[in-house]
């Protein structure tokens, strides 16, 4: 405990961080709550920001969000992407981490390569993926190219698939997004899981070897349980990140958030919030609170489940 005489020093050192947090985190959260529950906040403010209006308190903003025709699409896309990408990316990351951990030569190099997506701009990656899946840029078709994915499909004897051009189907769009999001999510998860694996005491494995434990049993009965805290962490943060999905879709489909002719087909909660900011702050705030509630509930469920199955 710091001597109470010197406590002001501690506060002084913390002050810059606290002030910034108050301005850019705490106040916006309070303000969001305020705006969400003020009826007709937006319209009135737009009419004249200099007049001090009296607002009535109510849940009109929430009603507006839920009645908005695109809201259910946003919710569906968000949940679908979450449910698909988190398990796939976690499973793949676990496999890669275990494989990486079990090799000696080139481990450092491969570790670096697997970490590359993490430090690369996601919009740039989005454009590359768009090219791979053959996006028609600026509305003009490029008949000379169908994208590398379709080239591979052709080589394997399959037909081209319209992944993301005008007239493409919803499931094809989702596949593109899932591939991109999973690929983008892997590095962080691999890093965490590999760190976890490397901190596992080697003697557990030696003990298992003395007992002649089959490899698969070592993996399921020793590695996974000992890794469970990291797995829980990766899954929980994965879900939280998944519910905030937005920039990856913009990165691939552009701000229309859907293939040409089917705008906002892949709209998400955060996409909805972003567009509402600027002209409907009250609605945006209400949507943000709804998203917060969803993430909160899902995280609580995650924690409850992981408490049972996690060994710390």
């Amino acid at each position, binding site marked *: 405990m710091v001597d109470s005489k010197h406590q002001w020093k501690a506060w002084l050192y913390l002050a810059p961080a606290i002030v910034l947090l108050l301005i850019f985190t705490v106040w916006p959260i309070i303000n969001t709550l305020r705006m969400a529950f003020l009826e007709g906040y937006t319209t009135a403010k737009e009419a004249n920001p200099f007049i001090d209006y009296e607002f009535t308190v109510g849940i009109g903003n929430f009603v507006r969000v839920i009645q908005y025709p695109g809201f259910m699409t946003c919710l569906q896309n968000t949940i679908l992407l979450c449910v698909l990408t988190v398990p796939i990316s976690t499973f793949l990351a676990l496999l890669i981490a275990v494989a990486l951990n079990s090799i000696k030569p080139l481990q450092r190099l491969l570790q670096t390569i697997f970490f590359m997506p993490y430090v690369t701009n996601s919009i740039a990656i989005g454009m590359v993926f768009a090219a791979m899946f053959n996006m028609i840029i600026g509305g003009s078709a490029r008949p000379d190219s169908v994208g590398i994915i379709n080239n591979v499909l052709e080589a394997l004897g399959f037909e081209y698939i319209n992944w993301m051009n005008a007239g493409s189907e919803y499931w094809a769009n989702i596949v593109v997004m899932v591939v991109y999001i999973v690929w983008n999510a892997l590095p962080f998860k691999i890093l965490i899981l590999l760190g976890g694996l490397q901190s596992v005491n080697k003697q557990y494995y030696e003990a298992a070897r*003395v007992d002649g434990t089959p490899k698969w049993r070592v993996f399921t009965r020793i590695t996974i349980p000992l890794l469970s805290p990291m797995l829980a962490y990766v899954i929980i943060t994965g879900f939280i990140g998944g519910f905030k999905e937005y920039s990856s879709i913009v990165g691939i489909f552009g701000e229309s958030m859907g293939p040409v002719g089917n705008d906002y087909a892949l709209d998400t909660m955060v996409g909805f919030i972003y567009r509402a900011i600027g002209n409907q702050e009250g609605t945006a705030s209400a949507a943000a609170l709804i998203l917060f509630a969803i993430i909160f509930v899902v995280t609580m469920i995650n924690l409850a489940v992981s408490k049972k199955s996690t060994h710390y």
Partner: protein
Amino acid sequence: MKVVLQNLTKIFPSRDKKAGKEVVAVNDFTFEIPDGKLVGLLGPSGCGKSTTLYMISGLQKPTGGRIFFGEDDVTELTTENRGIGLVFQNYALYPHMTVKQNILFPLQNLKGADKMTKDQMLERAYNVAKLVQIDELMERKPSELSGGQQQRVAIARALVKMPRVLLLDEPLSNLDARLRLQTREEIRRIQKETGITTVFVTHDQEEAMSISDMIVVMKLGVVQQTGKPQDVYDDPTNLFVAKFLGTPPINVFDGCVKDGKVYIGQDKVLEISGVADQDVTIGIRPEGFELDPAGGLTCQLSNVEVMGRDVSVVSTHPASVNPSVRSIIDADNKVDLGAGIVRYSIKPHKIFLFNKETEERIYFEVK
């Protein structure tokens, strides 16, 4: 099951290739561990005792030499096929499993003809748990156990497969002093009850002496001496073994042999025959001193420590290699601190002569 080590050698390649110096961890170790005995591998850290244990376990491959269990050559066998139980220094209990699950784990790995039903496994687990007296703790997690209890669980897990050989790596080093005393008796009891040939590694000579049927003293990868603890203590082959065994440690002096007499400094302490005149290193066990007003060895008295049954007399002598000379005498003897000096005669079988260069023992006959 007797265990035979034949010219066992382990060489670790040097990590830095440029330096090019490899480490000989174990050098040409030949020894037979008789069936059903408890053997202690003893030595300071880095002497190769743990490496020897791990080679017996199969976790490390010897560079040269062979290992036999009974008549079977197990040198090429992998660790799981050797039928050994190994207790790690920090126990390596699986932290996420209960005591019961930990003990059952090796049984659940059995395949083919050895496969057991659930009831058989449980019965076996409870039997071995009773043997090490942890049957009350079966539903606990390792983190809820004391160090001594964890040690027992680790032994139970090693024993549950009924191994041919039980190996213990520094079994007592993680326990506090009182538990250590208790646990070493426990290990001795379990070993006697099961009759499994057991090898354990320790750097603590008292621990090795107290429970082993035989000890192996090692130094820098080379075996110095093997034998029953008391024999090794009474008859060390070199200065290292003499210094390593015994608490308080042996008193070492610079001395010489001249005309059949042993001198420590100027003091004549013993008449012997069969040794040529030369400078020697002399070792005298603390219990080898006898108070004797006419004794040959005169020391400057510095302190007397009363320990109830015995008295420990601390003194100095100019020829002593150590800062002080420590003797242990019966408490019936009265030592007068005021006198300033103390005179001893030496029990002939408690004094050892060593070659000054090679530190090998020089044997003599008492006149």
